[in-house]
């Protein structure tokens, strides 16, 4: 009973549940989605949940914004510090998202796809082509890895020079 | 006792090549034995042990008999030991002297082994 009480009866805790749910959605997106842009979006949701956590921390029930008002003393106001910190966090989040999206653009250019499983296969093939030049002493000879790679159309250039 | 062997080297006859000399020696030896035994009657041997520890020691001819019996026993026992212990000379593999040059039947006149290189310094003459 106490758990249910904790969940529902205690007022205000629902915010945290919302934040946790949001975080889980974000993480789920990162984990389960193969598309790189969707992962970035998941990441964004995850970051938002963290930001919301801070906002919730700073909130004082019934408090106003922490703005100095002429002639009013003993005003109940929310803790401004977490909110201020979130300005930074939001900037960080934007920067991260921007950088991630920029990377996906480059990946799309280089590989012609943004599906992570296909990218992984391409990368493995590249790795193995490289390794083929360098037979490893511990690899038993004459034991070819007969893995079939699906044909993926490779677009873009092989890493164009110049941003 | 080894009279006939000397002739094959054609050297002069030596003292014991003559069986007569050997025979004389043996007679002299027996005489000595008799005299030594008789000494027991001439002298009183004071016993090695004090008191009655080993009375048999004072018996006449104890040492003579003990010496004789001991040696016969020794030889007979040793002879029996051969049946158990004797093995061929190369039982353990190598034989001493096997890799050294064996003198060829006669005397080694200079005492130098045929493979003098490897045995250098074993002897350098007089």
């Amino acid at each position, binding site marked *: 009973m106490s758990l249910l009480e904790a969940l529902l009866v205690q007022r205000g805790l629902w915010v945290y549940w919302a934040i946790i749910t949001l975080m889980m959605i974000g993480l789920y997106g990162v984990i389960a989605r193969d598309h790189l842009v969707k992962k970035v979006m998941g990441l964004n949701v995850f970051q938002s949940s963290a930001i919301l956590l801070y906002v919730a921390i700073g909130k004082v029930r019934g408090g106003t914004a922490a703005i100095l008002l002429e002639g009013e003393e003993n005003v109940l106001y929310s803790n401004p510090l977490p909110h201020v910190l979130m300005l930074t966090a939001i900037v960080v989040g934007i920067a991260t998202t921007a950088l991630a999206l920029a990377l996906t653009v480059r990946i799309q250019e280089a590989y012609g796809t943004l599906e992570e499983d296909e990218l992984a296969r391409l990368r493995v093939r590249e790795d193995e082509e490289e390794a083929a030049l360098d037979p490893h002493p511990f690899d038993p000879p004459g034991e070819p890895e007969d893995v079939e790679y699906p044909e993926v159309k490779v677009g873009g250039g092989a890493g164009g020079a110049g941003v | 006792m080894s009279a006939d062997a000397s002739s094959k080297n054609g050297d002069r006859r030596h003292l014991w090549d003559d069986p007569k000399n050997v025979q004389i020696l043996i007679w002299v030896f027996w005489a000595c034995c008799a005299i030594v035994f008789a000494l027991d009657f001439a002298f009183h041997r004071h016993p090695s042990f004090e008191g009655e520890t080993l009375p048999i020691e004072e018996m006449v001819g104890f*040492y003579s008999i003990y010496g004789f019996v001991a*040696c016969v026993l020794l030889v*007979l026992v040793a002879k029996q030991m051969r049946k158990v212990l*004797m093995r061929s000379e190369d039982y353990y593999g190598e034989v001493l*002297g096997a890799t050294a040059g064996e003198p060829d039947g006669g005397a080694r006149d200079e005492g130098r082994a045929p493979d003098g290189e490897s045995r250098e310094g*074993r002897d350098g003459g007089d």
Partner: protein
Amino acid sequence: MAATETHAQYVMGETVRLLDGPLQALLHPALPLLVAGVVAALAPPRLRKALLVLAPLWGAWNLLGFTSGDLVSAELAGFELILLRVDKLAFLFALLFHLAALLAGIYALHSDDRMQQVAGLLYAGSAVGAVFAGDLLVLFFFWELLAITSVFLIWARRETASTRSGLRYLLVHIASGVLLLIGAALHWIEFGTLVFERMDLGSAASWVLLLAIGIKCCFPLLHTWLVDAYPAATELGTVYLASFTTKTAVYALARGYEGCEPLIWIGMAMAMFPIFYAVIENDLRRVLGYSMINQIGFMVCGVGLGAGLGVNGAVAHAFNDVIFKGLLFMSMGAVLLRTGRINGSELGGLYKTMPQTAGLCMVGAASISAFPLFSGFVSKSMVMTEAAHEGYVVVWLALLFASAGVFHHAGIKIPFFAFFAHDSGLRPKEAPLNMRVAMGIAALLCIAIGCFPNALYALLPYATDYHPYDTTHVVQQLQLLFFSALAFVTLMLTGIYPPELRSTNLDVDWFARRAAPRTLRVLAAVGGAIWYGVLAGLADVLKVVRSVVRWLHSPAGRLGEPWPTGTTVFWAATLLGLLLLFSYLGSAL
């Protein structure tokens, strides 16, 4: 020679003792021989030969400057080491060793073999060092040096058999040294000192040390190295070997275990069993080897009988044994040198061309048989008398038996089969002059000591007024010896005496040389089968392990390949979840 504080100093160590006489710098007694050995290693042949003779003389002269009570100690790594401790016992042995080194040096003059000359000198020097060692560590040092230097005298024969024999010899003696070191360590632990003094059997150290000394001393079952190695050495090498190793061991025994009763019985066994082997042994030097164990038996017995006549007898007998056994080995060495053979079955009739050697050999034989007027008589009788005096009937009878037996094999068999018996047809030249000189000196000493024993008695560790030449003694001994000879003659004439046969007679080393290797071979075969089975199994396991490792870690493996981003994040989330659960449970408790 009172140790007064004036001048003269030791080169080694710290203690400075001043002698009454002219300014005299004394070397550690072992140094002249050791230095000569080192110099000989680099010297031309003539100088080497000179050193062989001069070094023992120089050493003896140097030795005479010392007197009982002299002590030289040095500190090494926190241990107070007694490099030199002079008392009558050590002095006598040192003098003996110098004498033996001199005789062997003269005996060796015909040879040019650097290896033997150097080894001989160093070997003699180590023996001197060992008897003057005041503590167990120094003793250990010289103990091992004895083993290492002497083995070259065996290897110098340069035959396959002797090389292997030498290896066995070295192995045994290194083992003895290691035991000595272990014993020293135990002694240090138990008593907090390394000083080598008389010990009571009982402490672990004393038993280990007894075993170490016992190996060198040829205790029964530990004796085979002697009869294995001595016949394998060169004619010269055996002369050296016969003088030092076992006598050093006797010295150590006299120093550490004087009056230990078990030694009486050990000595008795040692005096008894080899004579049987000696009768049927063909190799005459091996016969002498067995005879040597028999003689050491008398000495061990004497040490066991304790202070006074017992130890005196043991020490005196050791002194005489070095000379007469040396003489016998020298004569056999001369035979070996001149004929190239040493088996009784192949020899005979050599008196014809080697009469002097034969005569000298007979002097040695008379001495070892303890004929009156020969040296053996004056020392062996001391042990016998003491045994009777102490009331050991069985021991006395056994020793009497052994005395008869000694005459039988060493006194009669050696000269008879080598120089007389049937004519082998060999007509070798007489032994080289230097050999005859060495043998002559030895023979002279045998007779001199036999006739004038008091000079030797004066050197003995305990004061004695023993008189060997009373009628009873002489008569007893003559009866014993003549009737032993009578038995030999009778058995010879009746053809009962076992003929000399080319053969190997099994001794306890059979266990080491035959049984153990065969057992090992069987074990190895069985073990090998098991091992290969295990290896095959291991190989399979390894194959599985390797494929698992590959599956996990190779670039395409589960852990080796870069995971998709999602997987890593999943793990991060999982780890966080686990940690939260962990903390939740932790805080809930």
